[in-house]
């Protein structure tokens, strides 16, 4: 075992050996085995590169749009091609570029900024990446096959249902995007838990880098905001494939439900995109101003406020559908209100500029461009929050201009600043000022030429999504100018890409901490090693590199914690989420092919669903399930998870030997997201009951009261028994643990079988009424959870026999308990909402 903590003056040879040992544990394999890489640096870079690839595709689609609209009566694209192009432009930019690239940047940066060696669920990061790549490619393939989605990036029903979109176009969107969203949710879980549990020792919440605050809020927003859209996509795909009428008015559905679910996701999505970019600004600006961010606490307050209030705005996308005026005013007021926390951040940036000594390096150009464009976009946003103005310009190019100002200004410009700022990190080289300036000015001028003019095009009444227009309406010149501007902007982006390409070959070598930054990511080597830091320092300040400039050397010399490598484990500190005090050592899984295999299988399932090969899709799902189980087997006390479980006498225990591992937090955050999906379903149920214009209910409730109760009892018993087992494990006072867990599995299985019987016994007619279709989905949701719960409990029983779970490695049953508490709670709520609640007014 190599341990140099006791000897900080160790010689160079010893340091080299330590680096070599760490490299052996953390290093990336080459060739086809590179598919198994899970470390956050590589996964983050893969996200970034893939995101840039999709960005270029989205940009090319935008150029097609601008070419088509450059002159009136143009026949460059036909109406159907145009519909595909603008739908895919929006879809690619929102789902395949904006969110994933920012997630990738966060995955790359966060552990380095927080003083950790990796994210806490590296295999989940890898799964997220592969799902993103495969889902994106499936979606893009539709363009080559000329069946790309063509109903707008928002897929409004009934346009997107199978009556009005009978081809595969909408299916590609629904299945591809749902697949990609696996990536968003996994990144959300990963980011929340890693920020809260894997920081440098001593780094309390109040000392976190401000970027971590932004990403914490964004990750929670992803976990809560994405599930409504995932649910809506699943419902629409089921309605297309199996004719369940969730959005069909004639059978009791309501297309407006789609709009609610979509915008419940869609509006927070804007802030999910903006906030990480604002986090980049708040990180970089102080560095180039040479002083701390003014009003750190105010900024955190602003970010938290934005995170909440952004969920109260979704109806402002629906002002024209005929909801009561008072309700419109609630959303109008909330829409104005959200500008305030954003304003707080803008004032903080201006104050930092004012009080600092700004250095106008390349990233600063993009930051200044961001402030100018984003503030203008914010102002038109406040205009649009006013209901009468919104009615006036709804569905015109004014709205298109507004959201490009917000999204390109609010996301793309800070992202570019960030890429230039962290470029030395990726390459070990400094960016070129000359090409960089050209890229910026072409993009800035081109952007404003395109979209500033577009405000007037909209005010002159030009509607969105028309593939051409007649001459003489006053739209000819502004459209031509916008198109010219669009191409200038494209040249700007091309210059940036050229700069990037040349940079890796000819860029000047970067020295240590080249921008004189304050955050810990600059304490790594440039480019960094797979393990980030040789040793993990204590950090009790917001600006570690300003306060302790010697830190990078001391870290590299192995002068701090966990600079031991002989045990063969990948490890980082597990800390208290609030104080940052060390609680345990978290050991992390090594490279694994399972994430890639699982994503590949899911891709096969998606393709099978697209071509209606349902048997094959079923087989693929079973195979994916087996892979999931195998994956989860290599956890905790399994030798692959921790080859050597010994720690030094003065060190805390490994997390798998405590009751407090990151898995618990991971399950908790996953269930928050899962709960958001279920609440969306419940919202749909009550919404349709109260608002659907043609709601139809059967003469009798198809769900049998007694049967529901009978199914509930074993679920309750499973949960209570499991809770008892966990308590006894905690007290280290349990015998025949395996038998307990097998019995619990049997009880869970009984619940599952009763649910299956309930579904088959109930006289549901899901293709005839939305009422029955929703009931079926709710029962199916409970059944799915019961099946997973049974498998998880059975797996625990098996792991007891293999010695991976027991008094010395006790915490996994607690994770399964969380699942069963959730499953049982959901079933109780379903029972209340579908059986007990209707009894109060006897509609049947």
């Amino acid at each position, binding site marked *: 075992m190599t341990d140099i903590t006791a000897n900080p003056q160790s010689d160079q040879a010893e340091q080299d050996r330590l680096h070599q040992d760490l490299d052996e544990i953390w290093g990336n394999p080459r060739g086809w085995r590179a598919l198994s890489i899970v470390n956050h640096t590589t996964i983050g870079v893969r996200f970034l590169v893939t995101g840039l690839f999709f960005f270029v595709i989205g940009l090319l689609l935008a150029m097609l749009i601008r070419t088509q609209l450059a002159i009136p009566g143009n026949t460059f694209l036909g109406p159907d091609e145009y519909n595909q192009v603008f739908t895919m432009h929006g879809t690619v930019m929102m789902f395949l570029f904006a969110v994933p690239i920012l997630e990738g940047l966060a995955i790359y940066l966060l552990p380095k900024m927080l003083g950790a060696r990796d994210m806490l669920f590296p295999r989940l990061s890898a799964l997220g990446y592969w799902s993103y790549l495969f889902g994106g490619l499936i979606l893009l393939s539709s363009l080559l096959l000329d069946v790309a989605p063509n109903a707008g990036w928002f897929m409004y029903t009934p346009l997107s249902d199978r009556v009005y979109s009978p081809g595969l176009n909408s299916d590609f969107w629904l299945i591809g995007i749902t697949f990609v969203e696996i990536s968003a949710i996994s990144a959300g879980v990963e980011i929340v838990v890693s920020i809260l549990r894997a920081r440098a020792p001593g780094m309390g919440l*109040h000392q976190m880098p401000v970027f971590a605050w932004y990403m914490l809020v964004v990750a929670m927003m992803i976990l809560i905001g994405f599930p409504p859209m995932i649910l809506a996509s699943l419902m629409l795909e089921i309605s297309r494939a199996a004719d369940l009428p969730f959005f069909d008015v004639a059978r009791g559905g309501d297309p407006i439900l789609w709009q609610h679910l979509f915008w419940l996701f869609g509006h927070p999505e804007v802030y999910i995109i903006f906030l990480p970019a604002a986090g980049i600004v708040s990180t970089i600006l102080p560095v180039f101003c040479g002083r701390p961010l003014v009003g750190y606490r105010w900024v955190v*307050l602003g970010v*938290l406020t934005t995170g*909440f*209030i952004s969920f*109260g705005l979704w109806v402002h996308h629906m002002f024209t559908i005929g909801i009561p*005026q*008072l309700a419109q005013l*609630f959303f109008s007021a*909330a829409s104005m209100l959200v500008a305030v926390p954003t304003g707080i951040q803008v004032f903080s940036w201006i104050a930092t500029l004012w009080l600092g000594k700004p250095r106008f390096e390349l990233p600063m150009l993009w930051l200044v461009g961001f402030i100018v464009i984003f503030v203008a976009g914010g102002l038109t946003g406040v205009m649009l929050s006013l209901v009468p103005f919104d009615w006036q310009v709804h569905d015109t190019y004014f709205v298109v201009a507004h959201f490009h100002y917000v999204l390109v200004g609010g996301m793309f410009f800070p992202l570019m600043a960030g890429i230039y700022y962290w470029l030395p990190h990726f390459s070990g080289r400094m960016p070129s000022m000359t090409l960089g300036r050209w890229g910026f000015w072409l993009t800035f001028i081109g952007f404003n030429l395109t979209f500033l003019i577009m405000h007037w095009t909209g005010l002159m009444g030009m509607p969105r999504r028309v593939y051409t227009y007649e001459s003489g309406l006053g739209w000819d010149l502004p459209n031509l100018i916008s198109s010219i501007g669009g191409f200038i902007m494209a040249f700007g982006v091309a210059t940036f890409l050229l700069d990037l390409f040349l940079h890796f070959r000819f860029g000047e070598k970067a020295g240590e901490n080249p921008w004189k930054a304050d955050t810990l990511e600059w304490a790594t080597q440039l480019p960094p090693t797979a393990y980030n830091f040789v040793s993990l320092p204590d950090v009790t300040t917001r600006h570690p590199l300003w306060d302790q400039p010697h830190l990078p050397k001391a870290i590299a010399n192995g002068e701090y914690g966990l600079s031991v490598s002989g045990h063969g484990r990948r490890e980082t500190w597990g800390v208290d989420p609030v104080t940052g005090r060390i609680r345990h050592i978290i050991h992390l899984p090594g490279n694994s092919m399972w994430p890639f295999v699982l994503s590949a299988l899911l891709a096969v399932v998606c393709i099978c669903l697209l071509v209606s090969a349902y048997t094959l899709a079923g087989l693929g799902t079973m195979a994916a399930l087996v892979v999931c189980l195998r994956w989860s087997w290599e956890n905790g006390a399994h030798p692959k998870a921790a080859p050597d479980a010994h720690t030094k006498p003065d060190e805390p225990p490994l997390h798998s030997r405590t009751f407090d591992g990151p898995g618990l937090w991971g399950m908790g955050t996953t269930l928050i997201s899962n709960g958001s999906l279920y609440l969306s379903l419940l919202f749909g149920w009550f919404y349709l009951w109260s608002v659907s214009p043609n709601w139809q209910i059967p003469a009798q409730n198809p769900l049998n009261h007694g049967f529901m109760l009978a199914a509930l009892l074993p679920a309750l018993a499973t949960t209570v028994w499991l809770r008892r087992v966990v308590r006894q494990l905690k007290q280290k006072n349990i015998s025949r643990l395996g038998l307990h867990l097998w019995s619990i599995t049997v009880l869970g299985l009984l619940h599952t079988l009763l649910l299956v019987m309930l579904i088959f016994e109930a006289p549901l007619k899901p293709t005839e009424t939305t009422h029955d279709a929703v009931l079926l989905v709710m029962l199916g949701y409970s059944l799915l959870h019961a099946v997973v719960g049974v498998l998880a409990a059975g797996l625990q029983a098996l792991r007891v026999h293999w010695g991976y779970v027991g008094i010395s490695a006790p915490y996994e049953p607690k994770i399964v308990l969380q699942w069963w508490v959730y499953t049982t709670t959901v079933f109780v709520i379903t029972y209340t909402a579908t059986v007990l609640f209707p009894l109060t007014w006897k509609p049947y």
Partner: protein
Amino acid sequence: MRPAHPLQLIAGLAVWSLWFIAIYGGLSVACQIAPPEAEAGALNRLNLMLGLLTLATLAFLLWNARRCWQAINQGDSEEARRQRFLATLGAGLHLVGAIATLFVGIPILVMPPCL
């Protein structure tokens, strides 16, 4: 919950969110089931209920903001700094929740509910 408890960072705006769901959901359902007469203007039972809920929420948020503010620790230790950070933010976020409740709730005073 302690004024310097980390959950104070989400409590204030979580209450605001629940209030927001309650008034929007309540309004929508009430307008479907038993809409008040349009001639009654803003003075009707539904607006009264929404207004009372708004006032109660406002009072709760302001009370909690004050509680957090009073708990701000002026000490200079690391623990005191951490508590000060949480309590100050908790107070601020409850206050923001209160302002948001008031601002979004004002239309209840002047608008008939179901037009």
